[in-house]
Every structure is written in structure tokens, then in C-alpha cells.
């Protein structure tokens, strides 16, 4: 059974088509990434799927329930971490967790156990007595994500959940989510940090101007839309315009650029195994010394940008 099944979903605000005839499915235990530039329709889609706003048209089933007729049944089984902050300003971290569990009718004993676990898991134990208002942005974000795990759910919506988190906290949060997915949780996930999407998502849909442009696995998106691989190398001598001229004549090299920040050259090619020996030959001919060289794989970010550029054109 599909956990989310969306057909021809549209949400219009006056003349503006925030979401325009989109369709997709999400399977049980899947992490479904929903990526797009600012204003593409990601948050609006989440607001519709979480029953917060009504769809203009379309058929949507969430956890087997009709979105229009069975909103309450859906809300009983989902968790949502909104893009915007949400907290009770006067309540301490542990009080906020407990109160949120109480709102969801979680028994007292279970609440106490979960509060302890989540405080430690999300690095909030030291700040457990601090009122939410006095927390840093990152701490409040961690609290917001942790809070959602005070109650049981089958489907979790995460709208840019790691905004404001440092690298360690971000990785810890993603690993925590991965563990939950292993135990059967399904996640609908939006982010602007594409490494995160690649790390966590089984499939990704890219939305632009309210329409879904493509849906596939991260690997397939990179393969289909990512640029060629890149041979990145540095010279002991720093720069060499002569070498660049010679490399540009190699048929298998699409283009070569030098990174001004670290002086490394990036030669884009579909055949790095052909280009690398030639590079060494050319460098030797000019009496230059290559100090480091490696093959850079296309990234999801490359693919994402290509997808948006193709869509624009």
C-alpha cells in the first residue's frame, strides 16, 4: 500500500498556482525527498498533505485515508516538523517535550522515558531546564525535531529540519532518522542541503514553479542529469597557461577551469581514465609536477541545477 498517493493535486492562491497538477506516491519505509528552489511549492504541498490547508483540486490519500474526508484520522498518525520554528516560549526543554507528549495523550511513564532518551539523543540534556526562548536557534531546532518523537506515528513530514544545525548535530539528526526508518517509519523530507537528501532519501522528486519536473533515485538523477566527471589536479608550480592550452585540445575534455580559491584545475570529461595519463604526459613535456589528482563524481547538486536549468529552458 502506498503511504502517500497524490493524483493531480493543485493548490491555487488566487491567480497564483502554488502547486499545479502534481502526482507522486510514497511507499512504506521510504524516505521521499521533495526538492526545489525557494517558492517552488514544497511547503504548500506539505501543508496540504498534513491537512493544514485545503487543496484546490486533486485526489490525495495519506495512510489510506482520503485527505478531504478523513483529515482527523490522518492527523492522528502523522508527525510534522515545520519549516518555521515552533515552541512554547516559557517552558523548559524537558517541560516542552513532556507537554507535547501530553498533548498527544502519551502515558506519563512513557513520556518520562522518551524525554530522557530524546534529551540525550539530541544533545539537549545540559539545556533541559532552559526555557525555549533562551535556547540558541540550533538548540530550538533540535528540540523541535526531538519533540515530534514524543508520540508514535507512521509518517513524518520534515520541512527543512536541519536549518540552523551545525554539521555534527545535522549528521546525528540524520542518523537518528535513518534508524527510525529502519524500524518502519516513512519520511517526507524537504531540504536545500542536497548532501542530506543524498544521504537520507530513497527517491527524490524535484518541484519547480508548482510542477514536479522529475522523480527518481538520487543515483539515477545524478546519472541522468549530473554533469560529466571531473579530473581535479594541482600543480607544484601553481598555474600553467601552456598546459591549459594543451589540455583544451584533448577531444575528451569538455572544459577546464582553475579554482581561484585553491589553485586546483578541474577538467570536465566523460572519460577520466583516458584523460589522466594524457595529463601526466603533457605535464612532463612542460616539466611541470602534478602534486595531487583525483576523479570527482557528479553531485546531486549538479544534477539538481541541471534539472532546473533544463526546466527553465
Amino acid at each position: 500500500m502506498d503511504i502517500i498517493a497524490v493524483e493531480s493535486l493543485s493548490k491555487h492562491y488566487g491567480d497564483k498556482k502554488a502547486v499545479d497538477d502534481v502526482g507522486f506516491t510514497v511507499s512504506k519505509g521510504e524516505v521521499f525527498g521533495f526538492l526545489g528552489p525557494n517558492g517552488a511549492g514544497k511547503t504548500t504541498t506539505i501543508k496540504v498533505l498534513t491537512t493544514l490547508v485545503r487543496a484546490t483540486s486533486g485526489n490525495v490519500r495519506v495512510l489510506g485515508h482520503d485527505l478531504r474526508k478523513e483529515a482527523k484520522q490522518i492527523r492522528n498518525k502523522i508527525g510534522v516538523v515545520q519549516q518555521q520554528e515552533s515552541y512554547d516560549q516559557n517552558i523548559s526543554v524537558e517541560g516542552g517535550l513532556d507537554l507535547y507528549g501530553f498533548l498527544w495523550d502519551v502515558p506519563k511513564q512513557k513520556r518520562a522515558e522518551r524525554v530522557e532518551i530524546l534529551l540525550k539523543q539530541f544533545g539537549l540534556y545540559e539545556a533541559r531546564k532552559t526555557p525555549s526562548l533562551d535556547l540558541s536557534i540550533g538548540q530550538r531546532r533540535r528540540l523541535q525535531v526531538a519533540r515530534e518523537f514524543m508520540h508514535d506515528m507512521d509518517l513524518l513530514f520534515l520541512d527543512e529540519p536541519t536549518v540552523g544545525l551545525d554539521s555534527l548535530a545535522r549528521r546525528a539528526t540524520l542518523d537518528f532518522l535513518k534508524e527510525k526508518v529502519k524500524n518502519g517509519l516513512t519520511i517526507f523530507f524537504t531540504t536545500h542541503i542536497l548532501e542530506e537528501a543524498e544521504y537520507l532519501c530513497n527517491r527524490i522528486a524535484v518541484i519547480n514553479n508548482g510542477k514536479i519536473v522529475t522523480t527518481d533515485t538520487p543515483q539515477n538523477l545524478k546519472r541522468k542529469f549530473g554533469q560529466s566527471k571531473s579530473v581535479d589536479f594541482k600543480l607544484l608550480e601553481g598555474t600553467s597557461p601552456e598546459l591549459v592550452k594543451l589540455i583544451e585540445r584533448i577531444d575528451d575534455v569538455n572544459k577546464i577551469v582553475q579554482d581561484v580559491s585553491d589553485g586546483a584545475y578541474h577538467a570536465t570529461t566523460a572519460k577520466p581514465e583516458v584523460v589522466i595519463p594524457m595529463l601526466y604526459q603533457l605535464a612532463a613535456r612542460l616539466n611541470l609536477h602534478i602534486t595531487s589528482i583525483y576523479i570527482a563524481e557528479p553531485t546531486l547538486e549538479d544534477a539538481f541545477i541541471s534539472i532546473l536549468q533544463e526546466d527553465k529552458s
Partner: protein
Amino acid sequence: MNVMVRLVYRNLRANLDKGSLFFELIFPLFFIFIQGAAVAGIVPPFDIGNGRVISYSLFLAAGAVTLTVINGGTNAGTQLWFDRRHGMFEQILMGPFTRAQYIFSIIITTLIIGMAASILVFVFALPVLSGISITLQASLLTGLALFLGTIFFGAFAITLSVALKSSEAFQIISTVAFFIFLFTSSVFFPVDRAPGYIQAVSLLNPLTYTTDIFRAGLFDATTPILPLEITALSIEAAIMFTVAVAAFRRIKV
């Protein structure tokens, strides 16, 4: 546990801070123990209806109790305001709750806070109010006054918090409204002896009716117009409540 109980408990815990509670209690007590005592020396006891003659201290003590319903009511707007500002409004609506349950939980929370604060002020004011007898009629009338007054001012504050876009505007407008309600009502003086323009405004003012009904119950000073005042306050509370619900339904998320 019942959904409403959970929501109301959450509202109470999330929105009651010690500072505002202290203010809600201390503010009326200043009127009772300082202004009432000071002004009573220059104002002779006077008739408030039904032949009941009381001192200005007693008169103002009753007014100060009803004053707390405005504070309690403002609390409703503040709750909604903070829930919207800090994202909890949407968060709750994406949980196992409906909009109707949320707004009713705010109203019930306001009633609890308003009634509890009024009773507390009443208890603190007992030294001034010594000698009054609490009859069934007194309890019913005072309870009704506080209930209807809290409903009106709670609904009023909710409407304001929905209509106004910034917290500064909400604070300023609610404070200005607070003073208008306060000084054109019978909290501080008997309006029937005030200049005509004040009397005219006071006829529209729900705090006038709240205070008059409360005093009538507390001091057994019922007058022939009391049923009219109860009707007027009920209508005003019902209209304001309807406006608040309509405004609330229009909140965009």
C-alpha cells in the same frame, strides 16, 4: 484523556507566566487597598440601588474584581498571538485537534484564568468586603457577571490578535481599548452620576454591565434594570464571540 482537557492544560502551562499572573493580581489590589482607601476619606457613602448605601472602598473593591476579567480576556488574545508567532498554532492544528477544539480551548482557558483571578482578587479583598453575605443569588449573579464579562473580553482580544499584524500594534491597541473600557464603565464611579456623554458611552460598554451585575449580586443591590443589563451583556458577549469565531476561521496558515 479528553482532547479539550489536554488542550486546556497545555494552554495553561504554556501561556501562564509568573510575571503576568503577578500583574493580573497586583493591579486590582492597588485599586482596592490604595485608591479605594484613599478616596473613601473624601467620598461619603452613597446609594448604589435597592436602598443599599456603601462606602467608596466597597464600591471600588467590587469594580476591581470585575477589572480582572479584562486582564483575563486579554490573556486569550495573548495566547493566540504567541501561538501564532511561535508556530504552535499550526503545530497544534497538524496534530489530532480541530480548529474548533483549539479556539474553544483558548476560551475555556481564558474563563479559567479570568474566573480564578477574579476569585483570588475577591479573596484578597475580603478584609475590605467584610460584612457582605454570600447568598445563592449573590453567587449566581457574580458568577454570571464574571462568566459573561470574560467571554466578551476574551473574544474581543482574540479578534484583535487576529486582526492586527504586529505584536506592537496588538499591545498598543489592546492597552488603549483597555483604558477606554475601564474609564467609561462603572468600575471607578457610578455612571448614573457622570456627565451625559460618559453615560452614553457606558451604555455600550460591557464592563459597565459586568460591574453592575457583579455589584448587584455582591451587595444585594438589584435594580429594576438588572434583567436588561444581563440581557445586554449576554447579547454583547454572544455577538463578540461570533465575531471572534468568524475572525479565527479566517486565519491563514
